[in-house]
């Protein structure tokens, strides 16, 4: 019994390793797709958040000479003033065509109005449908607003009134999220990448050992050998598990290294993803391997060809997202019941780990136990199906 298992296992491993292209797509695509996508998303958010103060922006102004103090104020806020279009119509045109995002027009009477304490008119030309322009105009608007406040305070002070009367309410926001906690929002999608990589690692083997073997015509002589079909199937699933475990390891490690190169602190995040978490994450996710191998083999054994199997297994690749997605949309807190749901339980445990919150050992036990049980049941169903006559198609 054991010898047959080992023979089948070794052959399937060798066969899969020899098929370089398939192996590369399974062991590179899965583990590295996640971190690359991730780095991309993170860098994009960093770029956006480095927005206001730090980056210098240029602002075309018409009539800058009418408001020298305002211009100096804007420059102190990293807004570089450049000479704008020659007149108002040219400014409207420039914004309409997208040549400029924002143009400020200071009318000649600005100085006089200001001196007379009449609300001094400044025009801000912008296109609100253009999101890029919206960011720029918001920045200019904020700066103008700040200048407004500053002048108001000065006028009140000059009249012997404390500027504090302008602020009847003072709102103080207290953010209770911790840096690791904030990471969890973004890193929540990480758990799906691990499951995706895990499944990808064994997908081709699962197809090859069922639909592929049938299509090639190598299944029939194999079944005519003096071994039981259960032995063949278990050996094949074991080989699939090995590649899934390998792929999972690779994806955990690639994330570990990728996170080191992502400037997450700038986003106020410090995910807890050190070597100890990587090892713990492997053991939390590992029970999913048997389930994944069994479900992929099961689905592939229903299909008639390699192509059909590929189509169906892409659906299986997406299936584990469903529970994660539903819970994320409904923003449900981890509950005991959720631990019975494979993929969801792994996701929730992983999020807790990344948040650096202690794991509930009962939760872990239920997650591991129920996922393994599902795996065993599916393997058993696979074995039943493998015994059927129709297997040869």
């Amino acid at each position, binding site marked *: 019994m054991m010898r047959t298992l080992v023979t089948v296992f070794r*052959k399937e491993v060798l066969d899969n390793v020899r098929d370089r292209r398939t192996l590369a797509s399974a062991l590179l695509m899965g583990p590295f797709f996640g971190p690359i996508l991730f780095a991309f998303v993170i860098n994009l958010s960093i770029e956006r958040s480095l927005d206001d103060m730090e980056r210098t922006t240029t602002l075309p102004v018409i009539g800058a000479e009418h408001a020298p103090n305002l211009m100096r104020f804007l420059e102190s806020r990293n807004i570089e003033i450049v000479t704008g279009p020659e007149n108002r119509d040219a400014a409207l045109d420039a914004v309409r065509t997208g040549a400029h995002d924002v143009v400020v027009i200071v009318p000649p009477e600005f100085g006089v109005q200001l001196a007379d304490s009449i609300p001094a008119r400044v025009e801000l030309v912008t296109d609100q449908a253009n999101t890029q322009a919206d960011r720029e105009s918001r920045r200019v608007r904020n700066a103008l607003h700040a200048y407004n406040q500053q002048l108001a305070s000065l006028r009140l002070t000059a009249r012997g009134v404390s500027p504090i009367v302008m602020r009847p309410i003072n709102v103080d926001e207290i953010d209770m999220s911790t840096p690791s906690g904030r990471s969890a929002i973004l890193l929540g999608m990480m758990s799906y990448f691990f499951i995706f990589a895990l499944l990808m690692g064994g997908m081709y083997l699962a197809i090859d050992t069922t639909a592929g073997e049938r299509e090639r*015509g190598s299944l029939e002589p*194999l*079944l*005519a*050998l003096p071994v039981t079909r259960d032995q063949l199937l278990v050996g094949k699933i074991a080989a699939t598990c090995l590649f899934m475990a390998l792929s999972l390891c690779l994806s955990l490690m690639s994330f570990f290294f990728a996170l080191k190169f992502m400037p997450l602190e700038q986003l106020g995040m410090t995910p807890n993803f050190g070597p100890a978490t990587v090892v713990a994450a492997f053991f939390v996710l590992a029970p999913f391997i048997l389930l994944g191998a069994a479900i992929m083999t099961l689905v592939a054994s229903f299909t008639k060809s390699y192509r059909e199997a590929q189509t169906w297994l892409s659906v299986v690749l997406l299936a584990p997202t469903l529970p994660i997605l539903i819970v994320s949309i409904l923003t449900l807190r981890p509950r005991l019941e959720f631990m019975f749901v494979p993929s969801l339980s792994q996701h929730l445990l992983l999020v807790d780990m990344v948040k650096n919150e202690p794991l509930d050992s009962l939760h872990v036990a239920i997650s591991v136990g129920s996922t393994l049980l599902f795996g065993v049941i599916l393997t058993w169903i696979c074995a039943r199906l493998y015994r059927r006559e129709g297997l040869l198609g």
Partner: protein
Amino acid sequence: MIRVDGIHKSFGKVRAVRGVSFSAPDGAITGLLGPNGAGKSTTLRVLYTVLRPDQGAATIDGIDVVTDSLAARRRIGALPHGAGLYPQLTARENVAYYAALCGLAADTIDERVENIISLLEIGDFADRRTKGFSQGQRTKVALARSLVHDPQNIILDEPSNGLDVMATRSLRDLILKLKDAGRCVLFSSHVMQEVAALCDDICIIAEGKVAIDDSADGIRERTGCDDLEDAFVEALRMVNPA
């Protein structure tokens, strides 16, 4: 020794085999002859236990293929129609895989594989991956694979399909060698000449039934045709008078 006793097999509404009986003794070559779709492959698939008969029984060396299929498979070397190899493994690895699965002792596998490779004269390409092998090369490797454990009963489903003259000839020599070694060889074919040249006993199957089961001479006598091809056509007419 293979014995088939009134087996029936249907796939949905298609009644592929309707009561086939014959026996194939040791030290002899038995040919299963019939047109395409006559039920030859289905009969052989029942014998190498990948199909279960709806009715009737079959035994390999007295072992029932349904109730003790694992033991029956131990006594068989089967070459299914269009048997495929593992393209990423070398010919030698393909053969060694089957040797290990057949339960040959680990220390004898290399020797057995080497023997069968020289017997089938596939040494020239034994260490190449089978991806890209010609049909003849593939058939030889598949044959080596099914004979590696030295089975007493050999079941070959259309083994000469797609082989050229030289390959067919070496296949014929091999089958004769197996017969001389006292093996029971059962093979199917739709080529009259091939069966006539080799077989001690010919079982003509048409529409899932045995039309005639006799030696080549016996068939000539009973159909009244001198030419075996005419005899074949005559035998088919006996099954289906319309």
